[in-house]
């Protein structure tokens, strides 16, 4: 579904990765593992079409994202959701945050009408908002201000916000690296729920155990490219690439 082919990306004069290929299919979880600073975030931002690659292509269901015009790219972008390492919530209520993706997809007249409706009846929150808050077990906090949440709760809201508009692909950039085990478990359950909905998930993580728990396939990003992509158990039990084997066993220290 979402396929990156031979991506090359530089940051200033420094090359982040080269000739990198990655693919995620419907209802599949792909983990991208690799040491910190290897370019996982840059890769995910490129997959999110927030960053144009220096070379290579990103296609969604066969449409090359950087070969089409801005408005068509926007509609491709709108089929992709992304969660960052930090929650990055807006200074508004939880429900308004989760609703954001739905709101920007409406026409301006629709938006105005729903705004007026919510002012008049105080009950304009869409069902999709509660449904995705339920996935992260926070439906009871819909009316709270985002600023009053704990870090873990904020991150869960951030996940719900990306889930609410039912994207085809969900990109998660170290979604649990700042979280305690309980919040991490909720996010990992939510990843399973997303897979069950048929969403293709790419999760970048430096936590190999997490990759083992959630992923169907694992891509190992070492040096400046993906050294190996294989089903999870193959990567962890019988990797074919020598560098991957060293990295998995902890011998390769960056």
């Amino acid at each position, binding site marked *: 579904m979402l396929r990156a082919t031979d991506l090359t990306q530089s940051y200033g004069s420094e090359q982040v990765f080269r000739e990198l290929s990655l693919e995620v299919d419907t209802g599949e979880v792909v983990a991208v593992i690799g040491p910190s600073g290897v370019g996982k975030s840059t890769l995910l931002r490129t997959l*999110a079409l*927030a960053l144009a690659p220096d070379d290579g292509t990103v296609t969604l269901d066969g449409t090359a994202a950087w070969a089409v015009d801005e408005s068509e790219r*926007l509609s491709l*972008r*709108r089929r*992709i*959701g*992304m969660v*960052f390492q*930090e929650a*990055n*919530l*807006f*200074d*508004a*209520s939880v429900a*308004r945050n989760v609703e*954001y*993706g739905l709101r*920007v*997809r409406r026409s301006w007249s629709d938006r105005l009408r729903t705004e007026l409706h919510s002012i008049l009846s105080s009950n304009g929150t869409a069902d999709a908002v509660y449904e995705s808050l339920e996935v992260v077990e926070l439906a009871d906090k819909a009316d709270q*201000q985002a600023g009053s949440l704990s870090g873990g709760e904020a991150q869960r809201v*951030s996940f719900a*916000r*990306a889930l609410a*508009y039912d994207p085809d692909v969900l990109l998660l950039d170290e979604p649990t690296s700042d979280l305690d085990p309980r919040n991490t478990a909720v996010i990992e359950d939510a990843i399973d729920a997303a897979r069950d909905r048929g969403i293709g998930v790419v999760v970048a993580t430096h936590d190999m155990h997490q990759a083992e728990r959630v992923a169907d396939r694992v891509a190992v990003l070492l040096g400046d490219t993906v050294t190996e992509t294989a089903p999870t158990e193959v990567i962890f039990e019988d990797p074919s690439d020598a560098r991957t084997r060293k990295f998995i066993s902890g011998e390769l220290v960056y």
Partner: protein
Amino acid sequence: MPLESLGQPLSAVFDLPFRDGYVWSITYVSLYVSLVAVTLSTLVSIPVAITMAFSEFPGKQFVKSVVNTGMGFPSVVVGLAVLFLVSNQGPLGSMNLVFTREAMIISQFVLATPPITAISLAAITGVGKNVRDAARVLGGTRLDVALVVLKEARYGIATAILAGFGRAISEVGSVLIVGGNITSADGISKTRTLTTAIQLEARQGRYETAMLLGAVLLVLVLVVNAVVVRFSDQGVNW
């Protein structure tokens, strides 16, 4: 409350030289001129601040230094410049704006725009890149992202507008020069503001009156502040 009656109990108590409606009329002129000028300034400043925050264009640094210098414009010099602009020989001479409220609005606009632009710019650039990224990956267009930034920066922008309003309503020098501190024959203000009235009363030695007008001015500023702060609080649930 009929505002015309504002002067009567005051003059009854203090034995002040107030005619009916005098205080109300200078208060009205002060408010009218400042509010119109600040509204126009805001309409210009915010788009300029957004453009400066998010895009690169030739001369950006120049605009920035003009804005920063503008915050220190001496108001009498601005008044003088506007007077030349609207005087009979000036480029706007044909519009007969000398000693009118419109001329006062022009000079207050020039004075209020730099602080509103500079403080808004600081507030807008203070909104983290993270929040912009979030709005963008959630499917926002450029306009959506800009709106998110404005909403996140709303307290700073409210401060900017209040700073501009503060500069406008407390301004004496330029409104005196371009407005002329005029009342009509029946004592109703044409271009007299609270500040220029205070200046006049103080020069004539009527200190009680001057202080009273000063109190009115203070209350006015407090009320406007309260309204603007309340308004930006309302924006929490956007």
